[in-house]
C-alpha cells in the first residue's frame, strides 16, 4: 500500500527535474498586428537566474508573411533563439533566422500560420537579470516599407541622369566633342543601383495582402509613388543607352565596310523607331549611314575580280542588306550596284548548268564503269537520255552583255567549261549507242540460253571492254548449263548419257576465257563425276538392300538368290577425269559393298531371321529353315560369333559346345539327307568342353530324347550309333548307356564319359526316323560323384 502511495510523489519529483522552465506571461500574448507590447509577469519583469534555462511560447500569427519582433536589452546578456519545435532542449530544434542579428536589442523572426506556436528559448543566463522585453506581431511588407522608404527615395535621387546632353543632340550638336563611351559607362553604373532597388520593390509586392490596393493605407500609397518615379527614370536611361550605343558602333567600323554592314540591321531598326527617339538624332544618323554606303561598289568589284572558279558568286555583304539600309535612310539602290547584281545572277545560272552537266557526265561514266551484270536493253538508252537532258539543261551563255565584266577571269572560265562538257557528252553518246546494239543482241540469245552465241558476239567486240565487263560470268553460265544438262541426265538415271556429257565437258575449250574457267570446269567435272559415282553407288546399294530386305526370310531356293543381279552395280563406270585407275577403284568400292552384303549382311540377316522363326516355330518347315540357314552359311564369310553359333546350331556335322556343367543345352537335330526318305538319317554332335579341376575329367552325359524317337527304346535301340571321339560307345565295362523311357522323362544317359582335358571331346549320336522333320534334344553334363555305396 505504501509503495503505491509513493508513486505520484516520485512522478512529481521526476517532473520537477525538467531542464527548461516555461515563462508564462500575464496578460497572455496577443498575436494580432499591433505596435510593441510589454511582455510582463503580472506587471513585473520575469527574473532570470544565472545558469537556469527558460522558454516562452508565442502563439502563431493571424496571417501569412508576419514577423515576430522582440525588443529587449537582454539580447546580448542571455543566449537565446527562436524555434518552431521545442522539447526541453532535446533535438530536433529548428532555429529561425534572426533577420536583425547585427542589432543588440532587436530580434526579428519570420513566422507564419503553419505553426500553432513558436518558442523563444533562453538556454544560457550569464547572470541574474530582470527580463525587460517587448514584442510585436507585424506584416513583413509593412515592416520593410516602414524601415526602408527613406532609403529607397534617396537611391532614386542619387541615380537619376542629367538629361541636358540628350536633349541637345541633333545636326548642330558637336558629336566630335561628345564622349559617348564615358557617358554610357556612367549611365550604366547608376542604372544598376536603380534596377536593384526596383527589384526589391517588385519583390515586396508579393507579400502585400490581397486587398491592399483598395485600402487607403498610407504606407502603401507612399510605396506606389516611389515605384512610379523609379520606373520612369529607368525607361529614360534605357533609351539614352541605345543612342549612345549606335553612335559608338558606327564610329567603331570606320574604314571597314563589311563590319559596318554587319550592324546594318541594328542601324535599320534604330532608324525605324521614330517615336522613341528624338527626330534630330535620327536625321543626324541617316546622313552618317548614307555616307558609309558609298563604299559598297568598290567592295563588290574587288570580290568579282578576285574569284577564279565557276562556283556560285556570294557577295559580302549581301547586296540586299545594302539596298535595305538605303531604303531605311530614305533612298533607292544606285544603278551601278544594280548592274553588279544582274551579272552575278546571270553568272550563277550558267555556272550551275555547266556544273550539273559535268556531274551527270561523271555519273554516267561511273555507271558505265560499274560493270552492271547483264544490262537490260534500256540500260544504255537510259544513259544516253540522261546525257541529253543534261545537255539541254545548260542555259545560254549571255555574259557577253555585261561589258564591264567581260574581262573577268570567271567569265572566260565558265565559257570554256561549257564547250568542253558538250564535246564529252557527244562522244559518250556515240559509244553508248554501239553498246546498246550489242546488249540487245545478247539479250535475245540469253533468252535462248545460247551462251556460246553470246561468247561469239563478245569475242567479236573485244574492244568494248566496258560492255564485256557486263558479262564476266558468261563462261560460268555456259559451264553451269552444261553441268545442268548432265545433272538432268543423272536425275533421269541416264548413266551412259551423263558419263558421255562429262567426257565432252571435260574436253570443251569453247569459252570466252578458257584458261580462266579451266579450274572451275575441272572442279565441276569432278563434282559431277562424284555425283555420278554416288548415284550409281547409292542406287546399287539401294537395290541390293531392298533385295536383302525382300529375301531375308526366304527359305526356298536360297542358293539361287545369290546369283541375282542385285549383287552387281547398276552401271559399270568407264570415265574418270583423274585416271583409269580411279574408275577401277570406284567400281571396286561399289563391288566391295555388294560383296559385303552378299557375303556378310545378307546371309547374316537371313540367318538371324530364319533362325528366330525356326526357334519360334520349329515344327513349321523346321528342316527347310535349317537347310536355308546352311545354304546361307555357304556364302557367309563373316566371323560374327552369334551367327557362327547359329550356323553351327543348324549344322548337324558341327559339334555343339557344352561348356557348363548341369545346364541343359538345346540341340536342333535335322536330317543329314537333303531330301525326305523312307528312313531319314539324323545325327547330332556335342563337344564337351567344360572346365574342370580334375586332371582326368569324367561326366555323366544326359540326353533328353524326343519322345517320338525314344518311345520304342524299350524294344529296339533308339540310336544307330553313339561315338565318343570317333570310337563307338557301348554298354560294356564301366560304361553304361541308360535307355530313355517315359519313367525317366525320356532322358538317356551315358556314364562315365571320360573327357580329354583341354581338348575336343566329340560325342556323336546317330539315329534314324521315318519322318523328315526337325527334332530337339537337350543335353546336359555333370560330374559324377564318389559314393559310399
Amino acid at each position: 500500500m505504501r509503495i503505491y502511495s509513493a508513486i505520484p510523489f516520485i512522478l512529481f519529483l521526476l517532473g520537477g527535474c525538467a531542464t527548461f522552465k516555461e515563462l508564462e506571461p500575464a496578460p497572455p500574448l496577443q498575436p494580432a498586428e499591433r505596435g510593441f507590447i510589454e511582455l510582463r509577469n503580472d506587471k513585473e519583469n520575469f527574473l532570470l537566474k544565472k545558469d537556469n534555462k527558460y522558454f516562452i511560447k508565442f502563439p502563431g500569427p493571424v496571417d501569412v508573411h508576419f514577423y515576430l519582433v522582440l525588443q529587449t536589452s537582454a539580447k546580448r546578456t542571455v543566449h537565446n533563439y527562436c524555434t518552431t519545435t521545442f522539447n526541453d532542449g532535446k533535438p530536433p530544434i529548428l532555429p529561425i533566422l534572426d533577420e536583425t542579428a547585427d542589432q543588440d536589442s532587436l530580434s526579428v523572426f519570420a513566422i507564419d500560420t503553419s505553426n500553432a506556436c513558436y518558442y523563444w528559448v533562453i538556454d544560457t543566463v550569464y547572470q541574474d537579470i530582470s527580463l525587460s522585453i517587448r514584442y510585436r506581431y507585424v506584416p513583413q511588407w509593412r515592416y520593410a516599407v516602414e524601415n526602408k522608404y527613406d532609403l529607397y527615395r534617396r537611391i532614386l535621387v542619387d541615380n537619376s541622369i542629367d538629361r541636358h546632353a540628350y536633349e541637345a543632340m541633333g545636326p548642330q550638336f558637336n558629336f566630335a566633342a561628345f564622349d559617348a563611351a564615358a557617358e554610357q559607362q556612367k549611365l550604366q553604373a547608376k542604372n544598376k543601383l536603380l534596377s536593384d532597388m526596383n527589384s526589391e520593390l517588385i519583390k515586396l509586392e508579393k507579400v502585400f495582402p490581397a486587398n491592399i490596393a483598395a485600402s487607403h493605407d498610407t504606407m502603401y500609397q507612399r510605396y506606389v509613388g516611389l515605384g512610379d518615379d523609379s520606373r520612369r527614370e529607368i525607361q529614360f536611361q534605357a533609351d539614352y543607352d541605345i543612342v549612345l550605343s549606335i553612335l559608338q558602333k558606327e564610329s567603331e567600323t570606320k574604314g571597314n565596310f563589311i563590319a559596318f554592314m554587319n550592324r546594318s540591321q541594328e542601324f535599320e531598326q534604330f532608324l525605324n523607331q521614330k517615336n522613341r527617339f528624338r527626330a534630330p538624332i535620327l536625321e543626324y544618323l541617316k546622313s552618317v549611314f548614307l555616307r558609309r554606303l558609298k563604299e559598297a561598289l568598290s567592295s563588290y568589284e574587288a570580290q568579282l575580280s578576285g574569284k577564279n572558279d565557276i562556283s556560285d558568286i556570294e557577295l559580302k555583304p549581301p547586296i540586299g542588306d545594302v539596298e535595305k539600309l538605303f531604303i531605311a535612310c530614305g533612298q533607292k539602290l544606285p544603278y551601278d550596284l544594280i548592274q553588279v547584281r544582274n551579272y552575278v545572277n546571270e553568272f550563277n545560272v550558267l555556272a550551275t548548268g555547266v556544273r550539273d552537266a559535268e556531274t551527270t557526265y561523271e555519273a554516267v561514266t561511273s555507271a558505265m564503269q560499274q560493270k552492271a551484270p547483264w544490262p537490260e536493253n534500256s540500260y544504255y538508252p537510259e544513259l544516253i537520255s540522261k546525257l541529253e537532258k543534261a545537255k539541254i539543261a545548260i542555259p545560254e551563255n549571255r555574259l557577253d552583255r555585261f561589258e564591264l565584266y567581260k574581262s573577268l577571269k570567271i567569265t572566260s572560265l565558265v565559257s570554256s567549261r561549257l564547250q568542253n562538257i558538250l564535246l564529252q557528252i557527244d562522244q559518250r553518246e556515240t559509244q553508248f549507242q554501239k553498246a546498246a546494239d550489242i546488249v540487245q543482241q545478247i539479250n535475245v540469245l540469253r533468252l535462248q540460253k545460247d551462251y556460246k552465241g553470246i561468247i561469239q558476239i563478245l569475242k567479236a567486240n573485244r574492244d568494248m571492254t566496258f560492255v564485256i565487263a557486263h558479262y564476266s560470268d558468261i563462261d560460268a553460265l555456259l559451264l553451269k548449263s552444261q553441268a545442268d544438262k548432265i545433272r538432268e541426265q543423272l536425275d533421269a538415271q541416264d548413266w551412259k548419257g551423263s558419263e558421255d556429257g562429262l567426257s565432252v565437258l571435260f574436253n570443251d575449250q569453247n569459252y570466252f576465257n578458257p584458261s580462266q574457267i579451266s579450274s572451275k570446269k575441272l572442279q565441276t567435272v569432278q563434282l559431277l563425276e562424284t555425283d555420278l559415282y554416288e548415284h550409281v553407288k547409292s542406287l546399287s546399294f539401294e537395290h541390293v538392300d531392298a533385295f536383302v530386305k525382300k529375301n531375308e526370310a526366304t527359305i526356298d531356293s536360297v542358293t539361287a538368290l545369290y546369283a541375282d543381279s542385285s549383287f552387281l552395280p547398276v552401271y559399270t563406270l568407264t570415265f574418270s577425269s583423274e585416271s583409269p585407275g580411279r574408275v577401277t577403284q570406284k567400281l571396286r568400292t561399289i563391288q566391295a559393298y555388294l560383296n559385303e552384303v552378299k557375303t556378310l549382311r545378307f546371309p547374316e540377316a537371313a540367318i538371324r531371321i530364319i533362325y528366330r522363326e525356326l526357334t519360334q516355330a520349329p515344327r513349321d518347315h523346321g528342316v527347310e529353315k535349317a537347310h536355308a540357314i546352311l545354304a546361307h552359311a555357304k556364302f557367309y564369310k563373316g566371323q560374327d560369333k552369334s551367327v557362327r553359333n547359329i550356323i553351327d546350331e543348324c549344322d548337324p556335322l558341327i559339334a555343339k559346345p557344352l561348356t557348363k556343367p548341369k545346364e541343359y543345352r538345346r540341340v536342333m537335330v535335322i536330317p543329314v539327307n537333303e531330301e525326305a526318305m523312307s528312313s531319314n538319317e539324323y545325327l547330332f554332335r556335342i563337344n564337351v568342353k567344360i572346365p574342370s579341376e580334375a586332371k582326368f575329367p569324367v561326366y555323366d552325359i544326359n540326353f533328353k530324347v524326343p519322345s517320338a524317337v525314344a518311345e520304342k527304346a524299350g524294344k529296339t535301340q533308339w540310336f544307330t550309333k553313339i561315338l565318343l571321339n570317333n570310337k563307338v560307345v557301348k554298354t560294356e565295362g564301366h560304361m553304361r548307356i541308360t535307355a530313355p523311357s517315359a519313367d525317366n522323362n525320356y532322358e538317356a544317359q551315358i556314364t562315365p564319359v571320360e573327357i580329354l582335358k583341354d581338348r575336343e571331346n566329340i560325342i556323336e549320336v546317330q539315329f534314324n526316323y521315318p519322318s523328315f522333320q526337325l527334332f530337339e534334344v537337350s543335353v546336359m553334363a555333370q560330374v559324377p560323384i564318389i559314393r559310399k555305396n
Partner: protein
Amino acid sequence: MKKKIIIGAAIVIVLAGGLWYFLTRPSLTDTVAFPYIAHQKPAIDPHLPSSNAMADKLDDVVFDGLFNLTATPSGVIFEDGLGEFVGIESNIVTIHLKSGRYWHDSYQAFVDGKDVTIEKKGKHEFTAKDLAFTLKRIQSLGSLSPDYILVGQALPVMDFEGPNERNEIKFKFRENRIWIESDIKEILSFKILPDNSDMNALTYSIGTTSYMKVPDYENIIRFFRTQNGSAAISKAYLIPYVDNSTFTTELRNGNINVLLETPFGSISPILQEQEKFFVKSNVSSTFFAVLFNSQRLSREQRIELRRLLNNKAIVDRFFKVGTEQQRHTIDFKGNHDNYTDLVNDIVFPTSSYYVQDTIVDHIHDNNPPNLSVLPDTIRIKACLNYGYREEYSELIDILNDRTITQGRVKATAVQNDDIKRGDYDALLIAVSGYRSNFLFDLYSIFLREPDLETYKINLQTALNDKGELTVNPSSLRLNHNFLNLDASVNVAEKEDINIFLDDMYNFMSTHEVGDKQEYARRVSTDEKQMALGAWLFSLPSLAYFSTRLDSTSIDLYGVASQLSTLKKWKEAPKK
C-alpha cells in the same frame, strides 16, 4: 561198487560244473554280444580307417552324422541323423540341425560290478559348433580320411553359414552337378564329434547315438542304451577271446549271439541248426596278400615270386574245394561257392568297384614262374596274434606245401617284433575293413607302419611351388612300410617308387571320379610292373546270429556297415 561211486562222483562233478557254468555265464537277455580279440581293443575313430574291422563297425554304434547311411530290406538309405534336409536352391543347401540331441557325456553311468545304471548328468546338446569342429578335423586329416574325399567333392570350402534363428545352416555346394537330395545326404553322412574333443585322440567314445560306452567289466566292452536312446535292445557287449578259433563254438554255446565274421568266411558246419542260428552275408571287407620285402627281393624276383604264388590254387586249397571238408561260401549276392570270384590278381580286390566296373584290368598272369631267378628259400612270415589266426594257420600250411609253392617257400608264424624289424622276404597279411566302393584304402597297404599292434600311416605331404599339396617321398622310408620301399635306398627303382607314390597319393587325395579312375589304373599298372605283392584272395563276409534275435529286424546290405542298424535289432519274440 567203486566203479559206480566213481561214475556217480563224475556225474555229480559234471552236474555241479554245469550248474556253475549256467549260473555264472553272462546272461544275453536284452543284449547283443559280439566277440573280439582280447588284445585288440578297437580304437574308434569315425573319420579314419582302422586295421581292426570291429573298430570301423563301431563308428555307427556310437556316432551320428547329419544323415546316417543305413541298410533296409530294399537297399541302403540315408536317414536323418543330427540334421534334417530343408532344401537346395542355387547350390545352397539348407539343413536344419535337430535340437534335443545330447552327447553321451550328458549321462553318467553308475557301475556296480556288472550292473550299470545310467542317469542324466547334464545337457551337452549337439550344436553347429560340433559340426564346425568335425569339418575342421576332416579337413586337417586330408586324404587319410575317406570323409575328406566325400565332403571335398561337394564343398569347395569345408564350412557353412549359420545357424539362423530356426537353427538352420547353409552349405555352398559346388556348381558342377545337379545335387539331388540323396546325393546331399550322402555327402553329409560323415560322423560328428563334439567340439570339446581332442583333435588327435587315439580313440573317441562320446557320440550321440542310442548307445553310450560305459566302463568295461572284466574286459567286456559295453555299450548301454541311454535314457533318450531309441534302441530296441538295451546293451551291446564285445566279449573278449584269445583268438577267433573259438568264435563259432562260443556262438553255438550261447556266450555270444552275433558273429560278424566267421572263420574262413565260410558256412560253419556247427551252426547249421537253422532253428538256433541264421546267417546273413555281406560284401567282402578282408583280403589276404603276400607283401614282398623290396630290400630282400629284386623286382625280377618279385615278379617270379608272384607267379609262384598261384592264388587260384591257394584259394582252392584254402576252402578245400573238392574235398569232403570243403568250406562252403555264400556271397552277399547269394552266390554259393563262387571261389573264383574271391581271387585277386591286382591290388584292387575283385569285389571292389574298380574291378567290378572294369576301371582297371584284372588279368591273371598265367606265365609259369622262372624259379632260377628266385632264391632257394623265400621266407614268408605271418603274425597270428592280431586276428585271423585260423586263416593264417591254414595259409602257412598251404604256402609250405611243396605242391603249391614248389618247395621254394618257407612260411612261418612269427611275433610282431619280427615284422617290425622287417625280418622277412615276404609278409603274409590280412587287410581287413577294406571298402569295395570308390574309397578303397591304399595307404593301409603301402604306407602302414610295419607294426601290427598299432595302426599308423606314414603319409608325409608338402606344398609345391603352385601351392598344391603333394606327397613327400619320405612317406616311403626303410623299415616304415611292409614292403620296405624307400626311393633313396632302392636306387634302381627310385623313379618307379616315386611315380607309384605320386599315383597312390593322387588316387587317395582326389575327389574327382575321373582322376580316381585314372590313378587307380596307374597304381594298378605301377604295382604290376613293380610286383610289390601277391594279392591272393578276399574273404567272404558272413555273419551268424542267434535266433534269439529277430532276423527280420537285422538288415545287412552291400557296403553299409553291419552295425548301422544295431539300434533296430530286436530280440525274437519268445515262443
